[in-house]
């Protein structure tokens, strides 16, 4: 770790995140539990004594996976299968696949058959966020998950340990929110790319260490004042393709808010610290903006989205829609229509599409920027 460059520990993790996790395991002898993101409560894995590591398959080129999952599946699923078959993930002791869409359901089936030696868990998240019994069901599901991983690590699934984990993750999220906010006030130092680095690495490293690293960041550096940029709001699954944040920086876009599972949405809500920690995690889950695979009152959905965009003061919206993601593909036309009615320009980028290059995305963003610039009074 370089003393001079406070960003280097984060960069080192993200240069080769799986290798970093493997080395961590060799050094500590600890257990690692992978998860394929949407709404997996990392606190539970942490409290059970394991390191939660996010697995993102979006940018992985599929080869071995082609015989096991059809090509009309999203790259997130295909890439995960590919990494599993290649042995890239053999340092994992367990894996959590959350049920947020038909593809994650089938990914669990495929994974469970191909990698049976791993401690595989299917986190069955309720799709309704407006129902009191959905909370009870989710609570039971979180309790089951905690017991399951405590069984794997040999630790007791006790409330005190979980409460400590909740506290740690809240502290981490608070710091990440602070970093996210700096994008708007000090974008020369706190670039979108750097903030992404912080968020991405937080999903792959011990949170206490990550929090300590963040303390060394240049929080007091006011060398760069807010430049004239185009404020955008991002909706999508994950930040994909790789390099998209840097591309947005280069083109003069500032992300003021986003609803991705690896973005602001993941850090926006804390779990209450008083009371039962499982209940706190349920509350946090239910308070988080619903992922596209969840069901909310359809007639309110688009209006609520436009309200959130307006509240952010964003000038435009960018959708990062993974190819073959049905939930996003059903939502987006009405979302875009509602934005149009509110005179908010938007751009849909079909991400994770095999054969789509960064330069194509770059061209589209450039054209979008020009279109918005023309649109300015």
């Amino acid at each position, binding site marked *: 770790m370089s003393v001079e460059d406070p960003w280097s520990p984060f960069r080192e993790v993200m240069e080769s995140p799986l290798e970093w996790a493997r080395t961590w395991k060799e050094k500590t002898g600890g257990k690692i539990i992978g998860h394929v993101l949407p709404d997996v409560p990392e606190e539970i894995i942490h409290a059970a004594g394991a390191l939660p590591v996010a697995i993102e398959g979006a940018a992985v080129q599929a080869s071995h996976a082609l015989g096991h999952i059809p090509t009309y599946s999203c790259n997130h699923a295909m890439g995960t299968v590919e990494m599993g078959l290649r042995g890239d993930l053999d340092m994992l002791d367990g894996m959590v696949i959350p049920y947020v869409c038909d593809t994650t359901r089938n990914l669990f089936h495929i994974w469970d058959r191909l990698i049976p030696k791993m401690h595989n868990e299917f986190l069955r998240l309720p*799709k309704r966020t407006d129902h009191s019994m*959905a909370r009870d069901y989710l609570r039971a599901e979180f309790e089951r998950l905690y017991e399951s991983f405590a069984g794997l690590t040999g630790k007791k699934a006790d409330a005190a340990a979980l409460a400590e984990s909740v506290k740690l993750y809240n502290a981490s999220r608070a710091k990440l929110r602070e970093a996210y906010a700096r994008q708007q006030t000090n974008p020369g130092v706190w670039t979108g790319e750097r903030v992404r680095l912080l968020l991405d690495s937080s999903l792959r490293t011990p949170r206490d260490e990550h929090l300590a690293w963040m303390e060394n960041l240049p929080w007091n550096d006011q060398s760069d004042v807010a430049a004239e940029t185009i404020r955008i709001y991002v909706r999508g699954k994950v930040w994909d393709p790789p390099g998209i944040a840097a591309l947005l920086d280069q083109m003069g876009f500032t992300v003021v808010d986003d609803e991705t599972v690896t973005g602001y949405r993941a850090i926006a809500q804390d779990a209450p610290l008083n009371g039962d920690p499982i209940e706190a995690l349920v509350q946090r889950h239910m308070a988080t903006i619903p992922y596209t695979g969840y069901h909310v009152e359809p007639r309110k959905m688009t209006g609520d989205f436009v309200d959130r965009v307006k509240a952010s003061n964003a000038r435009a919206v960018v959708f990062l829609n993974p190819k073959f993601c*049905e939930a996003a593909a059903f939502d987006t036309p009405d979302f875009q229509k509602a934005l149009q009615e509110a005179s908010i320009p938007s751009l849909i980028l079909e991400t994770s599409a095999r054969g789509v290059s960064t330069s194509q995305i770059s061209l589209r963003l450039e054209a979008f920027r020009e279109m918005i610039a023309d649109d300015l009074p």
Partner: protein
Amino acid sequence: MQRIESLKNIKQITTEYFTAAHMAGRTPDKPVVYLNVFTPVEIFYAMDIFPVYPENHAAICGARKVTKDLAPAAEGMGYSMDLCAYARCDLGWIKTGMSPTFGLPKPDLLVVSNAQCGTLTKWFEVLSRIYNVPMFLIDVPHAGRGEKDPAAERYVRNQIEELIKLAEEISGKPLDQERLKASIQLSKQASALWTRMLELGTSKPSPMTVFDQFVSMFPIVSQRGTQPAVDFYAAVVAELEERVKQGIGGVDNERFRLFWDNLPIWPELKSLSTYLDENGANLVTSIYTWAWSMLSVGEEDPIGDWTEQYLYTFNLHMSRRVEQYTLLAEHYDLDGFVYHSNRSCKYLSQDIPEVRDAVTERTGLPGVIIEADHNDPRLYSLESMLSQLDNFLELLASRKKAN
């Protein structure tokens, strides 16, 4: 092949059904509900709320080959070609007004259960916005590895109870328990007859093909809980029993007994059935048509039965699907499996390569995967499909010879 005469009644039944649906749509005190399969239709029949199935309508559009006009219209509305072709056909007819059934009546309520797939939830959300009507999702958690899940049971049961309250609000009257019992009775009879019909496929030769089952599905999907469904299946079963006695098969010369996985390829029912008939291959059973044999409930605690059904019967871990296929292989004395890798139905298709391998490991029977689409002929090549089937039948023939 000698056709099944009683299946001809399906035209009259569908005509009467859609006429009644359109009448309901024009009658102020006869609300219309859009449903999917794993929802308690008996409740709606008992409350004079007319049930309509957009999937059924889309399948008719596919079979009548109008997808090529409807799907592009939906795509023009911004809906990706990667989305389910049923949904695209439905949105396409709303946009264009083109439909072999003169469309569907406007709904007053949308009810969907995700024991089937997540696609329907999102599709119905779009409909809720188009028609500005309420939508009720019965959220059914995945059955895991089949272990009992009391929290999930409470969750599903509670939602069905809420649904009844909502239906009472929409219809303006309480659910009449006697009418519900009557509807459940009829539903049970139709389900029993449907099951009997599928069971007759174990005869050699099988008196009907899975294509015949697809053609006969309409009443078990749309009219469970009504007399016309019972009458229709009673006539079909009687005719099939007679065919069994006389040794009349669904194909002329049954050489191979095969399983069909997934939804039909509606635009190719005729071409595929003709090809298989000419080659002595009889699709004798399918997990898809078996689904409707599991839908009847008891009169004592129907809500409990629906809960059990939705939770533990349909949204299964793959390993349980493999167990079912293995049992069917023995029950029907199958020679092989034809798996339809269906671009429009990721839910039923993405794990097919693993299902195929697992089933072959368990049964020793080969399986072929053909990639197609249940409704959109622009997304597959019939020639490639037939060529794959050619190779597969050759393989089966050589296996038979070797044995």
